[in-house]
């Protein structure tokens, strides 16, 4: 087994009487692509929110690269190397695609200053290099409103990647995508790990995508872990079949 990237220890989050996440312990190793699946309301996005600092767990711990990061804010976790994308693409609507990337580059490199131009050459070069990785470089001067749905989602991932992350949390990257766009996204997820060296934790509904990209799959149901294993193991698990097929 490789080195540990992320670990949750018995994390719990209740909203009133709803046990959204009810004592979940997971582990993600460096270089893995791990998928969180489960029916609606299983607690996948809540778990992602607990990991990325958007929510504080009622109890339990989150460790990132061996450090206890429970309750740390998203802006602090980003600096430690944990980036996140969103279910509904979440970008800066009035900035150009390039400026979206530049905001990430300046922030993560600690270059925010009142006298440094935001379009200085080396920052633009860095941002354009990221856009090229995601095949968005020809759309650098458009605003997100002018992009297709698939490209907007790609931009969301590109912003996260521009933050030099060790790990990216992806929340339903293929939601509402066409078949062609899904193929591109599968390619991007593989590329993140294989070529760019980023560990990926993925929440995804499309099981074809999940089976194709994942090293391991964690199945959640009603706030707890129902099953965990390699894609072929999970596919054959009777408990999983029951939850999915009734």
């Amino acid at each position, binding site marked *: 087994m490789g080195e540990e990237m992320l670990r949750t220890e018995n994390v719990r989050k209740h909203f009133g009487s709803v046990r959204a996440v009810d004592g979940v312990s997971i582990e993600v190793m460096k270089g893995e692509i791990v998928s969180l699946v489960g029916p609606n309301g299983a607690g996948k996005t809540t778990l992602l929110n607990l990991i*990325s600092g958007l929510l504080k767990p009622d109890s339990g711990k989150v460790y990132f690269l061996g450090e206890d990061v429970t309750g740390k*804010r*998203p*802006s602090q976790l*980003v*600096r430690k190397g944990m*980036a*996140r994308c*969103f279910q509904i693409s*979440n*970008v*800066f*609507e*009035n*900035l150009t695609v390039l*400026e979206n990337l*530049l*905001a*990430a580059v*300046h*922030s*993560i490199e600690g*270059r*925010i*200053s*009142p*006298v*440094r*131009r*935001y*379009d200085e050459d080396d*920052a633009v070069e860095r941002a354009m290099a990221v856009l090229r990785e995601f095949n968005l470089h020809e759309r650098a001067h458009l605003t997100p409103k002018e992009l297709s749905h698939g490209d907007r989602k790609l931009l969301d991932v590109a*912003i*996260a990647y521009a*933050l030099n992350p060790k790990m990216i949390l992806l929340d339903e990257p293929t939601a509402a995508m066409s078949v062609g766009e899904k193929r591109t996204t599968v390619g991007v997820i593989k590329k993140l790990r294989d070529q760019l060296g980023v560990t990926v934790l993925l929440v995804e509904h499309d099981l074809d995508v999940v089976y194709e990209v994942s090293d391991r799959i964690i199945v959640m149901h009603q706030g707890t872990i129902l099953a965990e294993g390699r894609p072929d193991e999970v596919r054959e698990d009777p408990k999983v079949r029951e939850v999915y097929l009734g």
Partner: protein
Amino acid sequence: MGEEVKEQEVSMETVAMILGVILLALVPLAGRHMTHLVASALLLSLAATSFNLLFGYTGLLSFGHALFWGVGGYTVAVMMARFGFGYLESVAAALAMSAIMGAAIGFLCVRHTRIYFAILTLAFGQMFYGIAVKWDFLGGSDGIYGLPRPLNSLELYYYVVLASVLVSLYILRVITRSSLGLSFMAVRDNAFRAEFLGIGVRATRLKSFIISATFTGLAGALWVLLETAIGPESMFWTHSAEFVFVTLLGGPRVFLGPVVGGFIYAFLADVAMSVTEFWLFVIGAVLIGIVLFFPYGVLGYLLKRLRG
């Protein structure tokens, strides 16, 4: 081809700027009334541009910005009239005081956004207006008057105002084009995502607030020396609304929008006041027209048309 068009555009902008500055430099030749009017317009423009750093660039609508104009103005008036300082020290103190007040009030206000932020800033503005009206040290409702005008000449002082405003606008322009300016815009567009970029949202808003308050304070300080007097009405909420109005008039999404708005407003008010006592009605009608027909402001609309 695209590059060529861009270069042409830049040079047109530069030519327009140089012409504008030459024109501004010639203003004292047009008589005292015009000199006074243009100096007022310049200071209103600076205050509105500073206000717009917070509004157009950072997405926070302050309805109490006249407070900082008043802080700058009263600091100069008190330093000169009560303690006998010269105008240079007094303006320097006004800058420091506006920044400190901006930090203190901003610290409390940036915890909120939208209508809550607007109401908080409005409340702070009215609170300090109340203090100015009641406190004898600040001259009560009469304010402080009879200050000496720097250089003993309206014409020479006009150039002090012109130079100060141009330098301030240049600094604000540098800031809006900087990586800090980009983080203001990122926070404006999507504070939630900005947090996931590692941008401290409150700290970023506070920086914008302090810079904005400081330059608004400078405008107020220079204005007191132009008028040689200050009264509490300079902090009243209608004065804050003037900054909002001027910014919408010119266009909040263009850097020079508030400057264009400031000049239109100052000249419009001057003409309307000389024609009718119902000049506020004229101003109100113009505002309604702008909001209905020019949602990007006058300059915003013109640039949109020019760029197709």
